[in-house]
């Protein structure tokens, strides 16, 4: 250190000759770098403050080509609501991953292309999602498409009418904000999913909410929702005509409440019938029934939110799906 100190004191003295070239290089490089950086800064400031606004001219290439080549590999994609996502399953697998595991159990090569399940999605929401390029891309890569949708339409009943203008996400956000009434009344999977921690104490308010949920109300949304379901299924098969579509039927999550058992079963059955009707009119689609899997065993197969299946429930659904695919 001491040696260095002596050399700082004088600017023309010892040591500096050695640095002549270092200094030249250093100053030139740093001046050039500074100039470049200043140009970059000015350029950036101009670009951000007054963007040129020339939109990306290259048209979105439609990668319709390359639907999964038939090589014996099962490529599974899932779209839909919280059931597709696997809400309520402590392992987070849901029926999608469990079905994939079931399919590959005997050595069939099975890939999960993507699980696009979104909590609280309704038929209207899914219909809009299917217009997205990314979603279509995922569906095009698959040869087995699992669809789970409708539960939120059916069980939101009257609540959904109120929130019609606000749209699905608002409704679910409302439910998520912690109002037990909305959660129970709408039966929205969203509210149920988020409120899992909060809900167990709220059994009485759940009953109160459910009293308003009479079968007529459950069914008011059926005609329009089943029409949307038809649009969804046919647009999926337009997106990927080669894939087989498996629609997961609804079950009645409120069967353990005496006043909801019969009306709930009726509503779910008419929904499933409407879905069956659509599916029968199209080739390449299959309905996987689940009503019988849960009826009478709700305590065993539903998670603590009283709406979504638990791990065992999802396993039963997955077994069904595997049977349908094979």
């Amino acid at each position, binding site marked *: 250190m001491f040696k*260095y*100190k002596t*050399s*700082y*004191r004088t*600017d*023309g003295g010892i040591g500096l000759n050695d*640095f002549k070239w*270092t*200094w030249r290089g*250093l*100053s030139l*490089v*740093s001046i050039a*770098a*500074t100039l*470049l*950086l*200043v*140009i*970059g*800064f*000015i*350029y*950036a*400031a101009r*670009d*951000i*403050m007054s*963007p*040129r*606004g*020339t*939109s*990306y001219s*290259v048209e*979105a290439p439609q*990668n319709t080509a390359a639907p999964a080549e038939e090589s014996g590999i099962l490529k599974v994609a899932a779209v839909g609501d919280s059931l597709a*996502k696997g809400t309520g399953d402590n392992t987070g697998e849901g029926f999608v991953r469990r079905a994939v595991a079931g399919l590959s159990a005997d050595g069939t090569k099975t*890939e999960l*292309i*993507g*699980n*696009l*399940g*979104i*909590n*609280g999605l309704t038929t209207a929401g899914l219909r809009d999602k299917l217009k*997205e*390029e*990314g979603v279509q*891309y*995922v569906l095009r*890569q698959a040869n087995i498409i699992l669809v789970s949708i409708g539960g939120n339409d059916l069980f939101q009943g009257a609540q959904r009418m109120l929130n019609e203008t606000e749209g699905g*996400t608002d409704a*679910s956000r409302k439910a*998520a904000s*912690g109002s037990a009434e909305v959660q129970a009344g709408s039966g929205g999977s969203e509210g149920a*999913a*988020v409120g899992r921690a909060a809900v167990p104490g709220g059994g009485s308010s759940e009953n109160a909410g459910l009293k308003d949920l009479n079968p007529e109300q459950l069914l008011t949304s059926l005609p329009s929702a089943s029409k949307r379901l038809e649009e969804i299924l046919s647009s999926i098969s337009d997106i990927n005509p080669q894939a087989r579509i498996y629609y997961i039927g609804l079950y009645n999550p409120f069967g353990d409440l005496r006043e909801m058992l019969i009306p709930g079963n009726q509503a779910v059955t008419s929904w499933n019938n409407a879905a069956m009707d659509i599916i029968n009119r199209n080739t390449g689609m299959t309905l996987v029934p689940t009503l019988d899997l849960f009826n009478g065993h709700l305590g065993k197969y539903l998670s603590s939110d009283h709406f979504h299946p638990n791990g065992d429930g999802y396993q039963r659904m997955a077994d069904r799906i595997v049977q349908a695919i094979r």
Partner: protein
Amino acid sequence: MNSLLPLIRNECMKIIKKKRFYVILLILVVLVPMFTYAQMRSAERNRAKFSSDWRLELQQQITDNENSLSSSRIPEEWKTYRRVFIQQMQYYLDHDVNPNEPSGVTFTREFLDNSISLFIPLMIMAVASDIVSGERTTGTIKMLLTRPVKRWKVLMSKMIALLMFVSLIIVSAFLVSYLISGLAFGYSGFNAPVFTGFQLSGDSVDMSAVHSVPQWEYMLMQTGLIWFVSVVVALLAFMVSVLFRSTAASIVVMMAALIAGTILTNMASAWTSAKYLFMVNLGLTNYLSGSPAPIEGMSLPFSIAVLSIWGIVSVIISFAVFTKRDILN
């Protein structure tokens, strides 16, 4: 002016002699491979999961973010961030452009983006913090001031030398990151398109001004913004170095300010007047990539203005103090 040039040269030589710049290079050479390796591992894992198709991966990312939006446990400003992210990624998907095309250039872009508010300022402090206080600690300041040179010239030469090294530090951060990550990800990718011009208004993103630029152009703008931030940080550290007698104290003061900045940007959205603090405004590249600013009401002109004022004031204070103060110690 004639007498200023040798002084600047003298100061540059001191910085080199003290090996500060080598320490910075060494830090880069040690850390960048670590980041590269981490990035490589996560890329490998995603490739296994998504059969090397970035579109599937991106769509899954979008879906996951959409799902997290409905959770009530997530603070509102994170949701805003995610909504913006979803819309931008959607835009990339719609235009069939991979936002994370794996290459050394993309890695460097991300690395610089993440280092603008803490890592690069820290490296600049390594040079700036002892540039004046170091002379006082060792006592060499007396030698410097007994020569027939005006005090402001001495200080000016130190400042210019510092600014020269600021540019060198940014360029070497870029070069080291590019050269090392290129070993793992390849050296191409300068022409890959990047979208910029996302204009945010609350939750929604205005796509009307979005345009694509080649990645090299994006990085030119990015490093330009980093340069501006670095100059301001350098000037502030310079002032602190003038004000404090010991190098350690001046490093601690600047470090505290910078770290406070990163903490504040994560939680200060409720305290809106924090936006006048310099350390909250360091993330200028966010305006380029279209990430939401930490506090509402911040924009690029605003941040540039705030940073400029802080920078100018610190220069004024530095010169006022340095030319007036008795150097006795």
